[in-house]
């Protein structure tokens, strides 16, 4: 039996990133091979998720601050800070792992979209931390989004790194 649809949207669903990907794939499949058996849904991987990806942190936000806020949703099993690949300094994201799936869902509902260190943070269900994922994937070592930002964000290293370099060279 399919789950009954709520009268309003839920805030504890995986982000549009994951669902959009899934929808695209389904549509694709319908067009190409209408009779194929559906493959396991990516959301299934998240159905017991206890880990959250937390984004839009300030580079200066500490583990203690994150603990203080996120433990309001349950005991934290593990906290992995996102680091600049080269500098090994915080680069504005982290993974928070709870003991239960329910705590992770509650965190989506109650903490996602609120402020930490005076920035609105975003949370997303995550299939679980794996070694290596703590590093930024941007060219200069941080997160990709910090490469090409054209407005100044003092909490995340000023201008985008790509622009900052240009600026430096131009001088």
């Amino acid at each position: 039996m399919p789950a009954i649809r709520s009268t309003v949207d839920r805030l504890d669903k995986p982000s549009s990133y994951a669902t959009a990907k899934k929808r695209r794939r389904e549509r694709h499949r319908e067009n190409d091979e209408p009779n194929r058996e559906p493959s396991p849904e990516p959301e299934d991987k998240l159905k017991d998720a206890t880990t959250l990806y937390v984004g839009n942190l300030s580079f200066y936000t500490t583990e203690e601050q994150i603990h203080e806020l996120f433990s309001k949703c349950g005991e934290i099993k593990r906290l992995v800070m996102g680091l600049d690949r080269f500098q090994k300094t915080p680069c504005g994201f982290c993974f928070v792992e709870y003991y239960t799936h329910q705590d992770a869902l509650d965190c989506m509902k109650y903490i996602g979209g609120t402020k930490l260190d005076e920035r609105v943070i975003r949370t997303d269900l995550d299939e679980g931390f794996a070694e290596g994922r703590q590093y930024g994937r941007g060219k200069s070592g941080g997160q990709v989004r910090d490469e090409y930002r054209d407005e100044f964000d003092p909490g995340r290293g000023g201008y985008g790194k790509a622009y900052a370099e240009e600026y430096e060279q131009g001088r």
Partner: protein
Amino acid sequence: MADLDVKEEPRDDRRAGVDSYRGGGYNNKRRRDDDNDHYSRDRGRGPQRRRHDEGLPRRRYEEPPFPKLRRLLLNIASSTKLPQDEAIEIAKIFGENFDDERLRSDFFDVWVQLIIEQPFKIPFVAAVALYGNEVKPEIAIEAMKRIGVRAQEALNAGEWKEFKLLLRFFACLQPLYQDEGVFTLLGQLFDTVVDLQSANENDVVGIELVKIILLTIPYAIVSGGTRFHEQAQQLLKNTGIVAGNMVPIEGLIHSYVGDEEQKPMGYHSVIGLLQAQLSNEAENGFELACLPRFEADALQRTVEKTEDDSLPTAPETHAFPTFNIPSPVNPGARPVFPEAYFSLFADQETGTVPKTTDVASSLIRDAIVDTINQLDFNREIVAKYLVDLDCYWHLGTFAKRGTAFDKFRDAIGDKLQYKSEDMVIDAIFSQLFKLPSAEHKLVYHHSLITQCCKVAPAAIAPSLGRAIRTVYKSLPMLDLELGYRFLDWFSHHLSNFEFRWRWTEWLDNLELSNLHPQKAFILAALDKEIRLSFAKRIRSTLPEPMHAMIPERLDADNSPDFKYDNKAETPYAAEGQTLLSQLRKKATAEEIQVTIDSIHEKALEAGITEVLVPSTDAFVTAICRLGAKSLSHVLSCIERGKDRLLEISQNETARRQIVASVVNYWKDQPGVAVRIIDILLNYTILAPMTVVQWVFGSHMGAGEALTESWVFEMVSNTVAKVTNRNRQIASARLQKGLPQEQIDMVEATLTKDRDNARELFKYIEDSTRGVEEGSADGLIEKQSSGELTEEEAMLIRAWGKRWHTVFIRKAQVEESVVGEEAVEARIKLLAAEPDVPEAMEEGNGVAAATNGEAQMSEF
């Protein structure tokens, strides 16, 4: 009718490639954008326009019937349209499409879901059925059938809130029944209450049932009219005894502690209040002014206009569905407790919220609270519905939105009207302050308040400000656990609003002794704010006279001082430093032992009998220093010293020293100490009893420790660890079909751990009672030496009383959940239960295991 089928509003949510039956759905899109504060945008006002619409010529679009019906029903009473007209429109469209079986079934699913999730809209959904009965009697018949099935399921499962809400739907259809309708069922429910109460005088499920009965009556009377007053009065006579009765556990859920006359508000049980209010209404002809009304002949009038020749006929009536009240009654997955009525604004001069004698206080509160709790998965929508509160009640119940407090009396004149923002804030605080525990995690209420402030800042913020001042004033009397919840909320709330607070109005209180609850609150709030931010930032948000409260040493980014660096004043300084460098270099256990031995030798020479104390101090302090950079660092340092720490923990005195050393190292940032203690408990390097004994044995002093909020936090966390575990064990026992071997094992564990918990509680109770009664040694000592004034001693004793109250409650609540009697009763019920399909059983197990969290499986 044609215009009704055409949608050319900006609400258009059509989506290319979606099948024509379902249509576009209701704004499924969720924006996620790291850079923008998208939450501040006005969301939830219906589907947003799709980007691809822009620039394209609008084409007239026929919305398929199901999405249209769904949209109309979900948005009923939310616009400027008359809800009655909306109900008629929905009934007509539904009538036209009633033969579509799939549509019919899907649409009734929406009804059920709307009733359960959005209690404000129940009377309006019922209105659709009322008018639908005239359009096509099958609409009403089928609605009763479908909603009846769901109500019966809720009754069987002991899902009391859902049962209450579904029953309300039936109450709103009272004019449609051939006989006494919902009153027959209410009568049967009361008989069940009598059975429950005569079987067990402390029964609480009966109390819940009486609450349901009392909250159903008003809706039945408003829809059914005067001919049911008699039944209502009869029922009220019956419920009176139960509602006026007090069960023992009620004595523990009072919001305030202390002298009855000084309390901001006396204790009222929710059902006691309801009973009195309804009896009051009965005397005044059941006015029930706040409930929305619908004209019985509204549909007839529209029909007459178009088809003059047809004669109006009386609407068809139907038999009330039969419900089967299970015996024994299933108490439900969540532990049931009696409820106290809490209000910050009730019975005050300005009358912004209904008086506690006014039934509106209970009816509106009940609907707000259910909305909050049922829709916890979307606080943005909840905030919108709460701000729109006035849409869902009888016109004129509320003053104009955002009417300022000081202009309120002038604005309403001699009308009886309420301030919706005050009612919303009051209701949220009633949940934040619900004892023994709130239905959802407390942080939900934090973020809901934040959201309300974002949706309607000008209207909500002043009400919230008055709420804060009211609670602050009541702090000396407020239950300590509630005081802590308030502190945690307050600091978290400010962190979402640039830490803005008018501290200047509390400046006078800085003169107070640190032992005074209000001063203690200010100190604790600053600490909590710093934890979420950093010292310098918080100082910048404070008025100048408060700057000194955040010492400058907290600004520096470096770690707290390592006392062994001070050779002149700290004994064993050399060994302390050696330990630090040994830990840093990952020296072997043998190498470290040499240093430890050296401390032991010196200690013996100095005449110290428990040499493990100074060596443990040095070892643990070195771990703290090495791990000072972050929690991950300290975690890996603990990991490194784990074996030795576990060895130390064999000696209770040394074990307590571990706590002492951690707290001492982090004395300026107790939040970090609390986290480290938590980690050490998980490693079983510390036992819960160690923490508690350190607090009440070593740290207590004359009882000053009881005023420090981090001490309460540490003890509460420790106790919660123990009780959560016991609840998990108990719920493991309550799985159906366990093999005997496993039952024995689980029961043995439960027995042992239950005893440990009791011992822990007893220790806390005894210690705090000593302070309360003024018989604690430390207190007597400092009092007789003149170190404490009489006034200060009285303040400390009041803290003792408030601590004692909290832990007595926690202990009894645990007894009622995991005590022998409670578990036995559950086991009996389990045995009586018919074998249920696998899936359901799993759902129950999960709900019990998550310990008071909402049961998610339904949604």
